[in-house]
């Protein structure tokens, strides 16, 4: 959606007016429906607000951390060292007992490290978990909460090179 205006509501207002003109009965029905919709919208607004991008506590889409040219966004820069929650997917492969995985913005069905020919996305987040990773299906939405750390780094244990990572992370299914 990203800044694209919703088309429904404006048109909707016009049609409510038209309905009211047509007949009183229609107008009552309209109003009832309009009220119901108002409630639905209010509920939507609350959950929407909870998801807003707040520096702490709010949930961030993975893509909001990288610019298109793969430099860090001002949002990422501003959150360096902070506890953040990033939404994405757990990429395979996962070794039992590991405390590391890669978070991707969209599901990766295959293991990019296993197959040289696979196209490994550049905009990823390396995740070092607080506890042993509990395997989540590659296509299940997850939110990872941890301390954001920017800057090139090679993990001594796995040898994995990352530009951005979450440490002491906890994984949550959406």
């Amino acid at each position, binding site marked *: 959606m990203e800044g694209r*205006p919703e088309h*429904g509501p404006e*048109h*909707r207002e016009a049609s409510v007016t038209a309905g009211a003109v047509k007949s009183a009965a229609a107008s009552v029905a309209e109003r009832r429906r309009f009220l119901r919709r108002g409630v639905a919208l209010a509920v939507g607004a609350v959950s*929407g607000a909870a998801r807003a991008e707040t520096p702490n506590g709010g949930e961030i889409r*993975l893509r909001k951390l990288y610019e298109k*040219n793969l430099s860090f966004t001002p949002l990422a820069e501003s959150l360096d060292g902070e506890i953040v929650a990033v939404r994405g997917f757990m990429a395979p492969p996962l070794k039992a007992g590991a405390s590391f995985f890669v978070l991707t913005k969209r599901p990766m069905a295959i293991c990019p490290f296993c197959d040289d020919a696979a196209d490994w996305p550049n905009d990823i987040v390396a995740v070092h978990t607080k506890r042993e990773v509990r395997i989540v299906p*590659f296509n299940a939405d997850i939110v990872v909460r941890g301390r954001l750390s920017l800057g090139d780094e090679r993990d001594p244990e796995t040898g994995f090179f990352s530009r951005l990572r979450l440490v002491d992370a906890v994984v949550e299914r959406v």
Partner: protein
Amino acid sequence: MSKHLSRRSTLGRVLGRTAPLLGAFALTSTAALAQDTLPQADNAWYDGARQALQERLERQPNTNRAKNVILMISDGNGVGTNYATRLFHGQQNGGYGDENVLPQESMPYLALVKTYNTNAQTPDSAGTGTAMLAGVKTKAGVVGVDESVVRGDCSQVEAGKVTPLSRIMSEAGKSVGIVSTARLTHATPAAGYAHSADRNFEDDSDLPEGCEVPDIATQLLDAMTEGFVDIAMGGGRRHFLPAETVDDEGSSGRRTDGRDLVAEAQEAGARYAFDSDSFAAIDLAAEGPILGLFESSHMQYEFDRANEPSLAEMVEASIKAMEGNEEGFFLEVEAGRVDHANHGGNLHRAVTDGVAFAEAVAKARELTDESDTLIVVTADHEHAIAFNGYCGRGTPITGVCYGIDNAGIAHNGEVQTADDGRPYSVVGYLNGAGSVIKKEAIPAALAMEADHDTTAANDDQANDVAMASGSDAGGTDTDSDAPAPIGETGDQVAAKLLERLDVTTETDEATGESTSFRWIGSRGELTQEEATDPDYIQQAAIPMGSETHSGEDVAVYASGPFAHLFDGTVEQNYLFHVMHHAAFGSE
């Protein structure tokens, strides 16, 4: 009034000169009356359709010789995917979406295309590309060869070679350009210049031992140095560079023969571009071939695009570079990533790349003349994409379904829910990563071991499995306090239960570690905000890592010389024959 007269004279001819004049007059006046005095005559829909009718009545077939032919393929953009793009594009422009007309949809002629390969109900791009470019259907996975070739068998390529239209055009003195947002060595662009037993033989490291047919990248270099292909722009740089070479954007090559095909092309006089700046710096008026390799692998999705040209910009540069040739040109254009986004189940990127393709179509039409340029717009195949109902007008095509307003036009703003009480998106895929059913691991402590001791503990564990996975054990005796049924051991009961729960155990051959899992799932809550997010993966029915193609028809839209020959339902290899006829007549 003149309308009535012409109608009467037509009817007069139909009825014959001997028909009583009065009778003919009575008939025509009734017909005319019906048109003008119908209660719906003032309706805008009525008027719009009358205009559409009039345009078609005035249409004259263009039988000029096509100096230029442009074949534009949106990979994976069947009728369904194109519909999604139509709505997305229209909604981006502030409309409901449905009423929108994409540039290709305003072209005068179209047909439906049957896309199967000779050995595949569900086609792949190599077989379909060959059908469009060479005029014969062939097997799935092979490029530029007929169906006599067994996929992967290099020894059969020479005997099975078919000649693509691009080469025929080149031999007729026309310039040839190939443009794609996928790797230039990928199936669809490769069908324009290569012959290969397997679409995956993109560079020498992919070739099987003993294969004497050059890899696809080498064939492109050869085509450029011999003067067959004049312009090639797209992705796939890694297949042109040695493994030990790091390219201008920091990625390594893939070739193991040590050849640097980019350098070889430049030595042969090619101008080379690898990013937006070097693309903009190309002197289109200068002599010599142009090679653009803008990514190590595929070019970026339009949504993510940075520092590389758009498809429309590549089309514009190609046309401007070739239009100086008095003999004309042939341009093959592929929007390669509509397909990839569909494979990923991510409608947002499929339709944003679909819009980028539509812009390329508009650019091609704008820069050429219908009198001498045949433009053919199509897809190579469709995907397993499907559309839910019943949504009101203006429901975001990438989002969840809103209800229909019985008193107005726009949707009523009420999110529609399925029997499970959950919202659903307008678009779903029949299979893919968006699968509702997921491979859920069962904690090892709860999973049953096949060689377990026969004790009551088995029943306990089976019960735990049932509870852990939220399954209703449904009347089976899983209560650990109850004795096992006579004649069955605890193991047997547990085994039966596990079978019913559909628990699978996989053992990693390398480590010996086993994991137990179930394929299970339910649809979660879904807000409009989540569904319209550019990274949203539409829900799918069948679990697959990559969503599949489908064998469903695609459309072909055309304008220019002999475009009217696109009519009815045709086989995909027919496209070649219309393009060839438009360029060369019945020669």
